[in-house]
């Protein structure tokens, strides 16, 4: 026991001597700080749908996309908007009108690091101008810094299309007579340019008819003026597609539509049947 105490005493004494012999040295911790300031967003190269046409009398989704980067991280990108406009007929600040100007809010997704994808889609209506449109994407960050980038060759191609009423019923007529009143068919411009018409047709037939059918030439039209004389002021339909100067304007605000006027002449000898045929309306360039 005494021996142990002696050993401990020597040990602790030695430690104490070492500690006392050591020079005292002191350091100091200094706090460091840096505040990271704002870095504006950068809209990268804009890509888009191109050479697209809306469906006849319908809509098509077009898109402009870009990668937006912000050195403060993608979370600093607050919002992205896009404007698609036809610079030949309006300005970027114009109002939305379906024909020349669209604005949309972009969907931000796939963020990582400094970058996030902006997907900007537009529901393009069929009467949007056929032209080289410009798509510009704007990005705003949380500090209200804005940057944009554009693509100037977003092509909307020409859509020449129409919609006609599905049927023309000439009613009931006796042999050897012609229509006393016009049967109308309303044509709607379903494209993005003015149109004229090519018209053609078939004979009106009935499979059980044994005497005669009704020749396509008995169907007559006037595409501009109603109530015209069947024999003198109307044009006979043909099986061959025939141009007519209809000049149905492109839609701008309300629908663009016009009536066409039809009559039929019945042969002198014909059975008491229902005869049916077809008329084909084709939109052609307005001349």
């Amino acid at each position, binding site marked *: 026991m005494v021996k142990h105490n002696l050993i401990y005493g020597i040990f602790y004494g030695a430690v104490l001597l070492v500690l006392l012999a050591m020079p*005292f*040295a002191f350091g100091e911790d*200094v706090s460091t*700080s*840096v505040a*990271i300031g704002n870095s504006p967003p950068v809209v990268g190269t804009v890509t888009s749908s191109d050479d697209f046409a809306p469906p006849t009398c319908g809509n098509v989704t077009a898109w402009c996309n870009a990668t937006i980067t912000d*050195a403060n991280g993608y979370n600093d990108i607050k919002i992205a908007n896009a404007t698609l406009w036809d610079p030949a007929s309006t300005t970027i600040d114009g109002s939305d009108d379906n024909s020349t100007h669209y604005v949309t809010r972009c969907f931000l997704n796939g963020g990582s*690091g*400094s970058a996030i994808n902006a997907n900007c889609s537009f529901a393009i209506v069929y009467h949007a101008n056929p032209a080289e449109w410009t798509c510009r994407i704007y990005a705003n960050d949380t500090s209200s810094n804005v940057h944009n980038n554009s693509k100037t060759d977003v092509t909307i191609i020409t859509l020449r299309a129409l919609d006609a009423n599905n049927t023309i019923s000439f009613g009931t007529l006796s042999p050897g007579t012609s229509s006393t009143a016009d049967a109308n068919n309303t044509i709607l411009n379903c494209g993005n340019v003015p149109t004229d018409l090519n018209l053609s047709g078939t004979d009106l037939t009935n499979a059980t008819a044994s005497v005669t059918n009704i020749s396509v030439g008995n169907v007559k039209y006037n595409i501009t003026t109603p109530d015209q004389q069947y024999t003198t002021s109307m044009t006979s339909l043909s099986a061959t597609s025939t141009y007519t100067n209809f000049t149905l304007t492109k839609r701008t605000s309300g629908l663009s539509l016009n009536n066409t006027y039809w009559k039929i002449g019945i042969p002198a000898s014909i059975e008491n049947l229902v005869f049916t045929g077809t008329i084909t309306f084709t939109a052609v360039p307005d001349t």
Partner: protein
Amino acid sequence: MMERKLKFLIFSAVGICLAFLSMRAGVLAGPASPLVSGITATDPVNLNTCSTVVIWCNATINDGDGWEDINNVNATLWDPASTAEGSSDSNSNHYTNSSCTLGANVSFTDVPANCSFTLQYYANPADWTCKIYANDTSGNSGSSFITDATINTLRALDAENAIDFGSLVPDSTSPEDANNTVTNCGNVPIDLNLSGTDLVNASAGIANISVSSVKHNVTAPGQDYAAGMSPLSATPTYANFTLAKRTNGLSINKTYWKIGVPSVIEKLIYTGTITFTAVDDN
């Protein structure tokens, strides 16, 4: 005749006794000089960084005329390697106490004297001498000393509490130095060991700032971040700073700091730590 011899012997003896007593009485009446003995001192002395420490040099004072005859005790503490006892006071190498404190007497002739010194942090690291003087009312004095009052080496510094790099945008570096002034708080020249931590923000989702993006030049201001400065490390790294020991005014020098910010980083405030450690001057 016999009677006369006897009288002579008696008178002679009385005379001798009177002469002895006279001599003895003369010795008792003379003033005694103070004696200083048993000096002890705080040893070793550990100084306080950029501050002071009170140390003691104590002794027992003896005066044969009684302890109350002691009217002053003073002491000098000096570094004999760099100055002399009679030199002026200097916080680096010479201190005096002109009026030591006397304690309660321990006998008719002995009294303890306690001599304190308030040492500055830059008192030389050395074996100092402490000499105590005692003076009595008769103008007599005595002294004694010890030569091995050791003051330890104090290697210490004080740096400013913060380095603020200000506001920087991503992918940039400090356009100007952020300075931090270092004070030698010890009694020897020092160099530096520098280390640090990343600058972080708990809500950062993309990046923090690596410790190595913090760079320093401990001697020259206005250096180029990329070419003229050294990156900080998490591991203490020696920097040749050579900050002299204080003699008169404070011994200070600036250090110069810049930071580089990653190319992608969120708008937050990032904080870290730099550790300055005093090391041997090489």
